[in-house]
């Protein structure tokens, strides 16, 4: 038999008190685990999402909204920028690669992002880990096809309602000939929709599923490739070739805008009607990262666009979120402390019952410090039980909340069952709090009068 056994037996002797005090500790621990898990996942997800981009260019407005929409498929697009800006920046000697994005459609709740093949072949969703295909290939893309599609879209705009039917027929014909509507799907999309290479699908206008949402019935896409899981928002994204985006009827305003125009469409909830010759955003990778400051300044001085540093915007977002979760965290830590006080009180209350046991142990040769260690050990045991229950409760809560979080913020999936480094610190913290909770009762036990304790009552 060991001291550990004595501690365990003592705790077991008062099962209700032990269970309730452990439970109160577990509530605090669970809250800490939930808050820190969400924060950790948020940091990981957001830091992974912008890997590879030095600058994001989009319509004037909130730079955070731009970054969230372009990089993480969250929120609504702040508006559009002219295609000409893409052409201009792609030729800029400081730019290594420019990738245009057009957004505004979805399929079964998964957002569709129109882009170039370069995005899938040259950008890295994780550092030094480019996209990999599970099967199939990346869609075909050419700038020539994009320009042709834009011209056709402009003509469609000029035809207006009267020429719509004729145009529809022409458009179908055009698709059949060029087979331009190709898509590459993320791993989660494949898993949840059942789409696979060779499947076709019809997109919905807008990024939220609703019964009355317009469907692009005449523009079915064919899945030509499926990506391997990346753990980033890309897993929940359908990538299509940019030219196919302009084949879609709804992506043309009735009154055509000039190709070089810089006007923005008014934002309407989730839906962004893309003007001919315009794109939603641009991702830029620069030859030398320090050039980003000058380039951002230059772009921000124009009337048509703004440039944002993804890292800076995410840091700003996390600092705002950080303030909130610091408050929540403080509350959770407070709960642990209150629970520790409860543990301490429970031990204090049991001291009268233990008076005889302590005296007997002392009569059998136990030293004062041994008795002290037994009582403090019991407080530590209660705290550790609370920690173990709190870990289960916390991770379980994260697992239960994960689908809701993912539904609210697509691509933001919580990793419930991965052990995080911070949990070591939570463990150490709870252990210290447990020791502190045991100190008072421990001192009382240390000072117990043996002769009085042995006196029959």
């Amino acid at each position, binding site marked *: 038999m060991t001291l550990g056994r004595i501690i365990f037996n003592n705790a077991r002797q008062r099962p209700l008190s032990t269970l309730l005090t452990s439970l109160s500790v577990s509530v605090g621990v669970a809250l800490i685990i939930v808050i820190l898990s969400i924060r950790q996942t948020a940091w990981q997800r957001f830091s992974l999402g912008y890997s590879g981009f030095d600058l994001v260019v989009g319509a004037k407005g909130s730079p955070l909204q731009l970054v969230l929409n372009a990089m993480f498929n969250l929120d609504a697009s702040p508006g559009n920028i002219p295609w000409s800006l893409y052409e201009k920046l792609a030729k800029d000697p400081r730019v290594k690669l420019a990738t245009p994005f057009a957004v505004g459609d979805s399929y079964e709740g998964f957002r569709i992002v129109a882009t170039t093949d370069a995005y899938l072949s040259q950008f890295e969703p994780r550092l030094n880990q480019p996209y990999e295909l599970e099967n199939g290939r990346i869609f075909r893309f050419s700038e020539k096809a994009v320009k042709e599609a834009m011209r056709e879209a402009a003509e469609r705009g000029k035809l207006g309602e009267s020429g719509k039917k004729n145009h529809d027929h022409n458009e179908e014909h055009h698709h059949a000939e060029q087979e331009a509507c190709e898509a590459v799907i993320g791993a989660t999309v494949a898993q949840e929709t059942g789409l696979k290479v060779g499947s076709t699908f019809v997109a919905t206008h807008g990024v939220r599923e609703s019964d009355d949402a317009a469907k692009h019935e005449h523009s079915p896409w064919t899945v030509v490739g499926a990506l391997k899981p990346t753990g980033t928002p890309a897993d929940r994204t359908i990538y299509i070739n940019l030219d196919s985006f302009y084949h879609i009827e709804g992506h043309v305003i009735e009154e055509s805008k000039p190709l070089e125009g810089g006007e923005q469409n008014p934002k309407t909830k989730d839906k962004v009607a893309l003007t001919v010759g315009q794109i939603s955003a641009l991702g830029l990778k620069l030859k030398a990262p320090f050039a980003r400051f000058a380039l951002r300044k230059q772009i921000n001085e124009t009337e048509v666009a703004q440039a944002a540093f993804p890292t800076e915007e995410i840091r700003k977002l996390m600092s705002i979120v950080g303030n909130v979760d610091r408050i929540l965290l403080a509350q959770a830590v407070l709960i642990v402390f209150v629970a520790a006080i409860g543990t301490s009180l429970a031990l204090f209350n049991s001291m009268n019952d233990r008076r005889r046991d302590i005296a*007997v142990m002392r009569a*059998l040769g136990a030293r004062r410090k041994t008795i002290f260690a037994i009582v403090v050990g019991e407080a530590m045991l209660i705290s550790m039980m609370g920690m173990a229950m709190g870990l289960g409760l916390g991770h379980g809560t994260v697992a239960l909340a994960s689908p809701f979080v993912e539904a609210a913020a697509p691509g933001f999936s919580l990793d419930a069952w991965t052990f995080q480094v911070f949990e070591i610190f939570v463990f150490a913290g709870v252990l210290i709090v447990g020791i502190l909770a045991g100190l008072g009762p421990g001192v009382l036990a240390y000072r117990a009068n043996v002769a009085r304790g042995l006196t029959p009552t």
Partner: protein
Amino acid sequence: MAFVEIQNLRMEYRQPDGKPLTILNIPEFRMEPSEQLAMRGPSGSGKTTLLNIISGILLPSAGSVRFDGKDLTQLNEADRDIFRGQRIGFVFQTSNLLQGFTAIENVILGSLFAGDPNEEPSSVRARAHALLEKTGLAERSHHRPRTLSAGEQQRVAIARALMNKPRLILADEPTGSLDEKNGQEALALIQNLAAASSAAVLIVTHDPAVMAEFPKVVNLKELNQRL
């Protein structure tokens, strides 16, 4: 030199009015090795206090208490704890078993605090089991105290007192809470097991039947010369 030797022992308590109250004033008291001695005295005569002083739980206000050649009053508390754990076995009026522990765990407790740290746990357990066997409780070694009768509990307490092979067994009214039959059995166990291990026994009692079982009875009232 005697096995237990008390010289000029005085135990005083401070009363609420600040005046000292003398509980014990014993000029001399001796016990020889393996001696079995009963001490009688009325309630409040200081019997339990004397046992606590002999075991080193309490320090006297004055005088010396020599045990096996060592003056307990000169040892610090931690050393007295170890000394007590290794050389003295306690049997109380009630068994004072720890309720959260099985019978055999209660017996082992003593060796945990003051036993040989080099002894293998299996050996400790075997000795505890052997002691329970001697007290007729081997079959119930894994029972908790509440499932044992008062007599059985006291027999477990006797086994516990003998666990560290003590040189002296101090028994404070060990039959006080037992019926006659169980009381006699408990007493016989203490005497026989102590004799078998050459341990001395000092029992305090006011029960004439218990006193009758001992070759020597000391009256604390005569020994204690209160001022």
